[in-house]
């Protein structure tokens, strides 16, 4: 336990240093508006990727409708700030709760589906959510929800990224996380070992959805507007790509994937068709030659950072 406390403090210090460094660069305008935007996006994408990884990577459930939960978070939080004049923190919590509640409601009936069928069901559900939002005039319908105050800044994003990674990592390293991983490995064996597989599948799904809601809240409160077109299947697929690129079952992998792909998107922003073509070719090659992604299910550990290879494997706490 002593050792763990040491690494905890080291981690905390590292976080503070990174935060101070980047915030300093932003405040002194060393990092211009384009990259400021992208740093915010990287943070949001990290939250999305890590939360999706909990569902797909650690629990082995095939969910490709994550954008729907992001949308719920975005819209619920926007309603709380714009229509109900609540402070940002309350809006974020509201967005998370809304998305989480929907995740629970959806997860309960659909998580008995397996593999391809679950994938298609989540895809369909993501689309249904988006189409429903498109038809709700109270939140702007097809024109989108306008006039959202820009509360999101680097500090908020950084804090929530750290919070997300902290919560999810601790979940994974506990007996509850082990239960989820055992479901991924062999659901029937997990059930035979006394694990309530339904409960844990729904739990992972709900937690993942809630954090997607957090990301959605941050997103809406940066871009002044929330529009259904930001939450299509393409968005779900973007997040999935980050997770798979980084490695299903690796938190540092998801972070890496989010950073890399946001970076690539930013660089190719002026060439949208080329961006998609490069994206898809990279994806196809990745799947054929290295389907486990960059880090597989290992984590980047500080000791081996220099060698860029995997470190502590998940599950051996």
């Amino acid at each position: 336990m002593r050792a763990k406390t040491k690494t905890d403090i080291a981690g905390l210090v590292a976080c503070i240093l990174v935060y101070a460094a980047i915030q300093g660069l932003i405040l002194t305008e060393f990092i211009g508006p384009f990259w400021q935007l992208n740093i915010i996006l990287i943070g949001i994408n990290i939250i999305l990727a890590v939360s999706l990884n909990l569902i797909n990577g650690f629990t082995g459930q095939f969910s490709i409708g994550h954008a729907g939960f992001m949308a719920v978070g975005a819209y619920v939080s926007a309603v709380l700030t714009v229509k109900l004049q609540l402070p940002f923190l309350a809006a974020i919590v509201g967005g998370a709760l809304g998305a989480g509640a929907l995740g629970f409601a959806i997860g309960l009936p659909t998580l008995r589906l397996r593999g391809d069928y679950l994938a298609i069901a989540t895809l369909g559900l993501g689309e249904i959510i988006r189409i429903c939002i498109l038809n709700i005039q109270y939140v702007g319908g097809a024109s989108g929800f306008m006039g959202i105050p820009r509360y999101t800044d680097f500090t908020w994003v950084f804090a929530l990224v750290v919070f997300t990674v902290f919560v999810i990592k601790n979940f994974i390293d506990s007996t509850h996380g082990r239960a989820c991983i055992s479901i991924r490995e062999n659901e029937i064996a997990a059930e035979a070992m006394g694990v309530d597989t339904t409960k844990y599948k729904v739990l992972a799904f709900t937690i993942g959805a809630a954090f997607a809601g957090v990301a959605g809240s941050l997103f809406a409160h940066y871009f002044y507007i929330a529009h259904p077109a930001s939450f299509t299947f393409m968005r779900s697929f973007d997040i999935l790509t980050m997770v798979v690129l980084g490695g299903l079952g690796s938190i540092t992998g998801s972070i890496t994937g989010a950073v890399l792909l946001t970076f690539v998107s930013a660089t190719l922003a002026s060439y949208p068709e080329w961006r998609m073509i490069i994206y898809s070719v990279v994806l196809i090659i990745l799947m054929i030659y290295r389907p486990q992604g960059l880090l597989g299910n290992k984590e980047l550990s500080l000791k081996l950072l220099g060698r860029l290879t995997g470190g502590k494997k998940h599950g051996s706490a």
Partner: protein
Amino acid sequence: MDSSSLVVQLGQQLINGISLGSIYALIALGYTMVYGIIRLINFAHGDIYMVGAYAGFFATSVLKLSFIPALLFSMAAAGMLGIIIERIAYRPLRNAPKIAILITAIGVSLLIEYTTMLLVSPQPRTFPAIFTADIYHIAGLVINSQQVLILVVSLLLMISLTYVVHQTKMGKAMRAVSFDTDASRLMGINVDRVISFTFGIGSALAAAAGVLVGIYYNSIDPLMGIMPGLKAFVAAVIGGIGNIPGAMLGGTILGVIEALVSGFWSSTFRDAVAFGILIVILLLRPAGLLGKNIREKV
């Protein structure tokens, strides 16, 4: 609305629905055959339908072919594309985890869409009028000759497919491979060739749908395959994924339901209804109307 005009409206939507349903059926057949044979949801299939439409466009406006040669040209072109895609992107992943091949399929889909956009511009194109629309009025119903064309061509293609699947050696091989791949291999069936053939036929049918849609709706664009692709997949699931008559049935049912929803309720919720039906079927009867339940051995 008085009862006679309600009946007329109903009949009208039924006609529209059957046309739409035939299109869905043609596309759904490709999904269902590929799933039946290698358990893959070919996300790129909707984009093959789009390529078929563009091939038809090319054949009619550049090569100045008439309807039937253009249709055949388009079907051949798409068939070849389907076979090439299987060879390059899916065959190496035959034994890979499900998520890898699904992501690859999505990748292929995006690649086709955006390459097309780069090549022919994202702007919609107008399909040349090679089959003018004559309007018939029968019993108060409006029937478009193009709708008749769609129905006739679809039926002919589906009958041909049924013949191939049940009366030819290759068709028998297809059925064998979808039942038990390893046993088929042991019986001397060239499984790779059968899979290629399946992709080819499925793609050709989707292309035919694309050409028919080009003729009927006049406008084609690189992203036109996304929604019809997803909905055709829903149709395949309704009928029972892997089941060929199921795809035809599912397509027709979905087309009719969509037409009725559009006509009598709201066209904005039309797409949501299709997905809603998908969810309901997956939850209540995942094997679909004509499919069989497959248990995992414990």
